[in-house]
């Protein structure tokens, strides 16, 4: 085996320039594929994180039918003790009651339709880290009669800290909901759509405003571990009266986002596939040359007593060496760049920012350094090499030794 390894290793360096070109082609293919995939996976993860941790949570409980008809009349009362019991489950980080609806927000001459979100401020902060988005002013507490406004909405309404916001809406069972609220803080929210039209009130104020009593529109669950989501979701379903309530997981609540990610992912995969096709032909070219220029040598080795299977092993190991070198080189040049962009995500500027916000994307391009990305790309290169290996194997199996010696 040692001899076989030695022959294989030395063989790949017989033509240094060709070997280096082959390794370089694998290296650049891997570099582009890994970096491209890293940006894709990073962006998807950021989108999911924004959607889940900034808004939906991993699981929500609503009154049955609420998700399809987000109406202030589709609300429910939930036992506070039951919420405490749920929160004592080590798998659950926090259970957040919310009261959400819509209202017309007005200041001076400007008016806009907004999403009003009644929250337990400190609890909400445990999941959405809402405090960290505070740009100006102070955070609210549960007794405050003040509001927090999204940055772009505040700009649109030309409102600053300590100004007064007018909210007008339809309350529970058609009651008129109208109120003046002191603006205590301005938040820069990561989801552009939310940043354009969200107003946060304390849950008590929201319940007073919409005249709902102690009722909520949703209970959002933040989990300690993503792996527990499905189990907890199933347990909640079996515990809760399904005639009156609905339990929804994050995938169902963010269906459009996931569909968008899937279609974008498919586009990325096509790009990478084209890249790999080019590389596959490059590797094939090298292997064709490495095989055909050594037909006489192969014939001699078989003549003097080397079994074809051992010769095939030499050729396979040569290709494995080439692939490993290409993969390592690809990892080495992509890793520093990925680490850099992981800590310094690309922040878009100019017109792109508005275009991305219109599609509800945060205008940044984060990088993922998930090891799986490296493994997957390495596996693709290995598979290409495995396919390419077929040629020398066939050539050796069909080799006519006498003709080969004359070649």
């Amino acid at each position, binding site marked *: 085996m040692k001899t076989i390894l030695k*022959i294989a290793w030395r063989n790949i360096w017989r033509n240094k320039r060709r070997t280096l070109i082959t390794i370089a082609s694998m290296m650049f293919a891997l570099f582009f594929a890994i970096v491209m995939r890293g940006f894709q996976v990073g962006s998807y993860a950021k989108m999911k994180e924004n959607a889940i941790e900034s808004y939906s949570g991993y699981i929500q409980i609503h009154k049955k039918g609420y998700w399809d008809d987000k109406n202030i009349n589709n609300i429910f009362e939930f036992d506070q003790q039951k919420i405490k019991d749920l929160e004592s489950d080590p798998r659950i980080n926090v259970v957040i009651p919310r009261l959400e609806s819509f209202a017309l927000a007005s200041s001076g001459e400007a008016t806009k339709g907004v999403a009003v979100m009644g929250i337990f401020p400190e609890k909400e902060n445990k999941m959405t880290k809402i405090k960290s988005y505070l740009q100006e002013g102070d955070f609210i507490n549960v007794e405050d009669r003040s509001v927090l406004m999204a940055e772009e909405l505040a700009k649109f309404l030309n409102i600053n800290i300590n100004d007064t916001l007018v909210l007008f809406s339809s309350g529970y069972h058609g009651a008129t909901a109208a109120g003046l609220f002191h603006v205590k803080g301005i938040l820069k929210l990561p989801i552009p759509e939310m940043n354009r039209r969200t107003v946060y009130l304390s849950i008590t104020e929201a319940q007073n405003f919409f005249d709902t009593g102690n009722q909520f529109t949703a209970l959002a669950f933040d989990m300690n571990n993503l792996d527990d989501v499905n189990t907890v979701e199933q347990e909640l379903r079996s515990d809760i009266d399904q005639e009156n309530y609905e339990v929804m997981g994050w995938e169902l609540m963010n269906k459009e986002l996931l569909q968008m990610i899937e279609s974008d992912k498919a586009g990325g995969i096509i790009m990478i596939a084209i890249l790999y096709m080019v590389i596959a032909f490059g590797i094939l070219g090298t292997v064709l040359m490495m095989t055909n220029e050594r037909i006489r040598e192969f014939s001699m*080795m078989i*003549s003097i*007593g080397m079994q074809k299977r*051992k010769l095939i092993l030499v050729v396979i190991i040569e290709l494995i060496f080439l692939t490993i070198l290409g993969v390592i080189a690809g990892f080495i040049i992509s890793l520093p760049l990925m680490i850099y962009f992981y800590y310094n995500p690309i922040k878009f500027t100019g017109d792109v920012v508005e275009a991305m916000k219109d599609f509800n994307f945060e205008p940044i391009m984060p990088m993922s350094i998930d090891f799986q990305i490296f493994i997957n790309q390495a596996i693709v290169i290995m598979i290409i090499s495995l396919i390419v290996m077929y040629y020398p194997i066939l050539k050796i199996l069909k080799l006519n030794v*006498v003709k080969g010696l004359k070649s």
Partner: protein
Amino acid sequence: MSVIKVSNLTKTYTDTEVPVHAVNGIDLTFEKGEFAAIVGPSGSGKTTILNMIGGLEKSTSGTVEVHGQDISELSSGKLIDFRLNNIGFVFQAYNLIPVLTAKENVEFIMQLQNWEKTKMNERTFAILESVGLGNRVNSKPNQLSGGQQQRVAVARALASKPQFILADEPTANLDSKSTNQLLDIMEKLNKEENITFIFSTHDQRVVDKAHRVIKVDDGKVVSDEVKN
């Protein structure tokens, strides 16, 4: 007992427009320790005979027996093992493994035969010494002259002590000095190791050195002369 017995051996190539009868029913026997040359003009069938004796080519009819075993009955895998354990080859174009040193080339067959390392080392150095290359053990083929490469090829063929050595035009690419050196070495090793050498050649210098000269023409043996 004869080492090799060739009986009524024929070879006809049918993949040409007109069938070519390269070997036409030859009978030959080689004894242990012979130093024999098969001579004849180009296309006379000498290389084909050598290839069939070495199991590189299948005969159309007839048999090649080595120590009583008909090698034409062996499968291709078994034939490779048979060659590994019984035959040493010396080719016209040296055919060393270019990425291995002289020592590694000589060791190659012994490694395939799983020789014990110390014995293999001893044998390699001894055989390289006897072909006059004791000082070039770590040279790669491209660092050696044609004559030196052919001497390494002879050392490689002899190292594992095969039953016989088949040398196809071994001096064709060598100058006179290298040819004489090589022939002297092969004759010496033939005596020392008592290994049968069979050459195919049209080089008169080889014919002069050979102890037995088999002339072939049109695929037939036209004379078989043992020198005294």
